[in-house]
């Protein structure tokens, strides 16, 4: 495996101008994904997970825009490409799978047509070649009797089968990176496991990198190699999944882990993080998590923390800042 990551995002900022000023759904986010690796982006709704995905594939809705940072695909910048060049990357090198398979497919077009048009948009093949490739793709994602199902319309498939079709569409031009935006949220639990297993298998077999956007810590634990926890548009904690989940360092990650049901822990009561994520229009000064944090110290209310290495992962929290670490004990809870 080469050392250059397939995708390297650094200091990415996405801004939306609104009447009151400028909102930043994504604020200085950076991460890398390597071939065959699955990176999880986890966080509550509105944490900026999906916006990161849209930014990478260049599909941010107007008037939003990338206003800072860079996105590099194999070392080549792609965040400032003209629309036509970006279109050639979309589907061909970076593919996307959306949340709801019921609405991701055009209801008035057969799945075969949607597959062949995608294949032919990126590869110079004849229509009969595209068709046999489409059948092979459907077989690969586990659609039974693919050759006869290819001329069916999306409504003739079940939800899980439709998500398989969507994944086949994402794989159509053998992309290097797949961004899966909550690919199983709309599906039954049993189907969820199948789809995740399929994604994982395809990623391993083809060496495709995957960015998995989800709010489900269980899916993160089972599927990802590395995980980035997002909060209010920033990375709270990022590192190998095992390290982040077994020894969470950021108070938010600790809270998230405590609020995930497990069969070994306390089965009576599930803890929850008090309050809710701040509105983008009213992000508190300092660390955005400070109103909900139980361990705040004075710098939390003044400055935004930067990522520090703690226990094998990187954490953005003042508790781990070398300068403040010494006097953490005296100040904990003092400012509440």
């Amino acid at each position, binding site marked *: 495996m080469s050392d250059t990551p397939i995708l390297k995002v650094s200091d990415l900022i996405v801004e939306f101008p609104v009447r009151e000023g400028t909102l930043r759904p994504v604020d200085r986010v950076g991460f890398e994904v390597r071939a065959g690796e699955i990176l999880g982006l986890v966080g509550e709704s509105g944490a900026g997970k999906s916006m990161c995905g849209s930014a990478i*594939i260049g*599909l941010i809705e107007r008037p939003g825009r990338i206003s800072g940072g860079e996105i590099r695909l194999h070392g080549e910048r792609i965040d400032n490409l003209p*629309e036509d060049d970006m*279109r*050639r*990357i*979309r*589907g*061909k090198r970076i*593919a*996307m799978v*959306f949340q*709801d398979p019921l*609405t*991701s*497919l*055009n*209801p*008035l*077009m*057969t799945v075969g047509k949607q597959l062949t*048009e*995608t294949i032919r*948009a*990126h590869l110079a093949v004849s229509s009969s070649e595209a068709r046999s490739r489409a059948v092979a793709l459907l077989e690969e994602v586990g659609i039974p009797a693919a050759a006869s199902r290819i001329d069916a*319309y999306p*409504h*003739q498939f079940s939800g899980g089968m439709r998500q398989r079709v*969507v994944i086949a*569409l*994402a794989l*159509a*031009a053998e992309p290097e990176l797949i961004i899966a935006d909550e690919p199983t949220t709309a599906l039954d639990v049993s189907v969820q496991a199948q789809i995740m297993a399929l994604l994982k298998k395809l990623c391993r077999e083809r060496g495709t990198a995957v960015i998995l956007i989800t709010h489900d810590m269980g899916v993160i634990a089972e599927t990802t190699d590395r995980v980035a926890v997002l909060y209010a548009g920033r990375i709270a904690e990022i590192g190998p999944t095992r390290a982040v989940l077994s020894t969470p360092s950021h108070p938010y990650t600790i809270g998230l882990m405590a609020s995930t049901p497990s069969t070994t822990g306390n089965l009576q009561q599930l803890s929850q993080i008090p309050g809710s994520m701040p509105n983008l229009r009213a992000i508190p000064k300092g660390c955005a998590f400070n109103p909900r944090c139980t361990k705040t110290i004075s710098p939390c209310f003044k400055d935004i923390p930067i990522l520090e290495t703690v226990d094998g992962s990187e954490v953005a929290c003042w508790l781990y800042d070398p300068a403040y670490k010494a006097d953490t004990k005296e100040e904990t809870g003092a400012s509440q």
Partner: protein
Amino acid sequence: MLAFIIRRLGQALLVLMAVGFVSFSMFKFMGDPLENMLGQEATVADRAELEERLGLNDPIIVQYFDFFERALRGDFGVSYRVGLPVGEVILDRLPATLELAFLSGVFAISLGFVLGVYTAIKRDGFLANFIMTTSLIGVSLPTFLIGVFLIWAFSVNLGWLPSFGRGETRSVFGVDLAIFTWDGLRSMILPAVTLGLYQMTLIMRLVRSEMLEVLRTDYIRFARARGLSQRTVNFGHAMKNTLVPVITVTGLQFGSIVAFAIITESVFQWPGVGLLFINAVSFVDIPVMSAYLLLVGVIFVTINLIVDLLYFTIDPRLSVSSN
């Protein structure tokens, strides 16, 4: 599918019977047909005899079914004004109205569709905004005003196009049509534009809003994420998905183009059924009026039926036959 068609035909028949009842009531309750037919010299015995002969003493319901049965055979009685069978009078005038409606329908649909798609794709463009603003005029100005204005501009001042009449006609399969002669086509342009302008702006605004709606859907986003070109996304995916609601409204609009050609035909003295109807109204020519009413009913019902069937060819989710 077949069951659907049969059910729809049944519904269509019910609608037509209701319209027929209104047509029938015009004879019954507007004026006295005997007075019209017998004149002043008639005796009471004459009246009684005619009443009996015309079946006017039968119960209302029997008379209604008699009327309906005759209407089905195309027998609407004799026009009071011209003394000819109403069926003949109307058939003679119908081609003129239909060809005018056809041309203005083509104008309204093609231009409305193109402009609607354009203004949706170039949502914030200057030209798109200009077209949207101008279209308000089309929606809000009354037809007769547009007609008079067009005559003033293109006939009176510029002298490019004739201001009234149907021009030269050519017989095609025994039907006199103006659309196949240069002179006739020239005569049709102004009335067709007048008749179709409102429908055109309506279709355009509808197509635009439907298209904007579709462009926001997930499958359009997904189509973009798959790297399809903007053109494929706009025309291959978005446009087809706007068709279902657009066809509904367009179909109904075509019905109203035929039915309400009355005003345009009066302004341009176009010898169609609309003008015939206006003349019939001023003469209280009830057989013509009632037949016209039924005709409009038939046209609307037929168009609705065609529209319903078109859905099947566009939206595969509706076909029951597929599993």
